[in-house]
């Protein structure tokens, strides 16, 4: 198995007729992903390199059996594209678009929750299951098939760690970039749960960043629900203290949010934390040896 994307993925790409959308969508197809449709309003009937374009995601579902949607449309329209995918009966929505207004995502987040649709992102690099499928912008050449599940807030940092794992002779069951926006569809906890239940995954690498409390909550979740070993890396120990306007943020988040607080939260629950991406990869390699 693997998670989020795999051999069963039938992908439709909203924005496949755009420059970025076609570049990455076709790259995903070249990797072996089953790209069944593109969606662009008013361009139904056209083709992009042999991929049929439909006006709506609903048509991509009924005509081509799409079950996974990648959102590559401009930020101001992206939330309604996600809503469209949810209404069309898509199972997994992967939103790459950066800069979607937070208030747009508030409504869309709850819509996806209520419809029980798995939403990854927005502002994320997507998901890759090496040897099976790639949906998004993750450069697949740095990852081999293997037993380490990676979940990360950051794109380039994930590539860095994947490459170090590869050099250590290790591969991945899946790599999932959840994105670093204030409101994301899936948090660390959602992905940890999938890895815990995934046969192919033996160890989980979690890559976090300063801000929010998703890492702290992940630490609590790991202690209670995850039996597989987890190695963490946190970026941002030397980041400047964000200037704080009011007090409300501190009231709801307390001391959490700093890299040090996140590291301590993980270590208190027995999760080892690498001081650099290399050290995190090394700890993972040692644990599996």
């Amino acid at each position, binding site marked *: 198995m693997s998670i989020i994307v795999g051999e069963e993925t039938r992908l439709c790409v909203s924005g496949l007729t755009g420059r970025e959308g076609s570049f990455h969508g076709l790259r995903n197809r070249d990797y072996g992903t089953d790209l069944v449709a593109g969606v662009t309003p008013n361009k139904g009937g056209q083709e992009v390199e042999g991929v049929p374009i439909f006006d709506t995601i609903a048509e991509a579902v009924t005509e081509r059996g799409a079950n996974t949607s990648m959102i590559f449309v401009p930020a101001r329209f992206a939330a309604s594209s996600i809503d469209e995918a949810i209404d069309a009966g898509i199972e997994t929505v992967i939103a790459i678009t950066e800069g979607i*207004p937070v208030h747009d995502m508030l409504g869309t987040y*709850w819509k996806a929750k209520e419809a029980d649709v798995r939403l990854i992102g927005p502002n994320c690099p997507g998901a890759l299951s090496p040897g099976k499928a790639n949906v998004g912008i993750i450069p697949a050449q740095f990852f081999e098939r293997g037993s380490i599940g990676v979940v990360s807030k950051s794109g380039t940092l994930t590539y860095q760690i994947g490459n170090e794992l590869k050099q250590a002779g290790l591969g991945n069951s899946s790599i999932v970039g959840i994105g670093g926006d204030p409101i994301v569809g899936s948090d660390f906890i959602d992905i940890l749960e999938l890895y815990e239940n995934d046969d192919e995954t033996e160890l989980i690498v979690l890559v976090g960043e300063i801000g929010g409390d998703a890492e702290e909550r992940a630490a609590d979740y790991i202690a209670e629900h995850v039996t597989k070993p987890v190695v963490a890396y946190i970026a941002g120990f030397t980041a400047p203290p964000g200037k*704080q*306007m009011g007090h409300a943020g501190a009231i709801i988040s307390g001391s959490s949010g700093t890299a040090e607080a996140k590291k301590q939260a993980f270590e208190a629950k027995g999760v080892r934390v690498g001081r*650099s991406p290399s050290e995190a990869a090394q700890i993972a390699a040692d644990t599996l040896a």
Partner: protein
Amino acid sequence: MDLLEYQGKQLFARAGIRVPEGEPASDVEAAVAAAEQIGYPCVIKAQVQIGGRGKAGGIKVAKDASEARTHAEAIIGMDIRGPRGEGPFRVREVWVEQASEIDAEYYASIILDRSEKKSLAILSRMGGMNVEEIAENDPDALVQRHLDPVDGLSLNLARELSVDAGIDEDVVGGVAEILVSLSKAFDELDATLIEVNPLIVTAAREVVALDAKVTIDNSALFRHEDIAGLDDLSDEDPQERMAKERGLTYVKLDGNVGILGNGAGLCMSTLDVVANAGGEPANFLDAGGGSKADAIVDALEVITSDEKVTAVLFNIFGGITRCDEVAKGIIEAYSRVDMDVPLVVRLDGTNSEEGLRLLAEADLDGLEVSGTMLGAAERVVELANV
């Protein structure tokens, strides 16, 4: 985007929330003229986007024109640091407003709660400066309620909150109405924070917003042209301004090691690795996911315009970014920028072999290549501290 107090208050007034009458002023004469027009006593308030202005001496009451002049002279041009040492923020503008007779001080805010993915309304009968202490020592004095993502805050719920918070009975209705207006404004303005501290009850038992802290979601500014166009006089650091003009994500720090990475996570990680190697980062600069040659030239110009920088590290892991493009950018930058500090380059990932070959061919003065992120960090720290 963080708004200044008076900009927030002007938005409040439009949303039907009562605020004291006032005028902004950017020099002493204008401040005195505003005070004369408003009458005395009036309050001269420093306009910077940070809390703790009162404690820093940035808020003063004037009883007459001569006091207004004295205070305006002291406040305009002063540097204010935030409670956690943020800043300094230079005061470029003051807000001159009618002094209020205060019977009670409350606290009200609407904030985006990332964890719960909902907006959160917070109300307390104990307003004033030390709300964080109250949160720690007397959490029951802060009443919090998550809002329905569709329905928002109803007047009934707002009344309930006000009663639970122990708001004086005669103003429960007034406070509830303001909460509803704040919640509406929060949604309509695409705010991620609206805080009123204090929300006062005047001697005449009117509920008035005496302060305004408003943060607008940058991603939504395209639908708020009036707000996007507001002056941001406090953003004055020369490198940060230069970076903004060129569309780069740059944060100035105090050290001497200039840093460029691609992607926010890798860039933050690079700062950490440099600090672990004993160095002090001069900046955070994320060249973005698909860095092209021009962006590299811009970035190098911004980094080296900071006179404190004694060595620069480029840490690139090419995913979408192609290392040969980065190498071309570096070579181009050397022909356009007067590089008088050493540059350590680590290129890995997509097309790194081609990139490294181009750099070797160009044989640039003061440029060194390192094979790993850790090795590059150690080397740049050595060079920076010579």
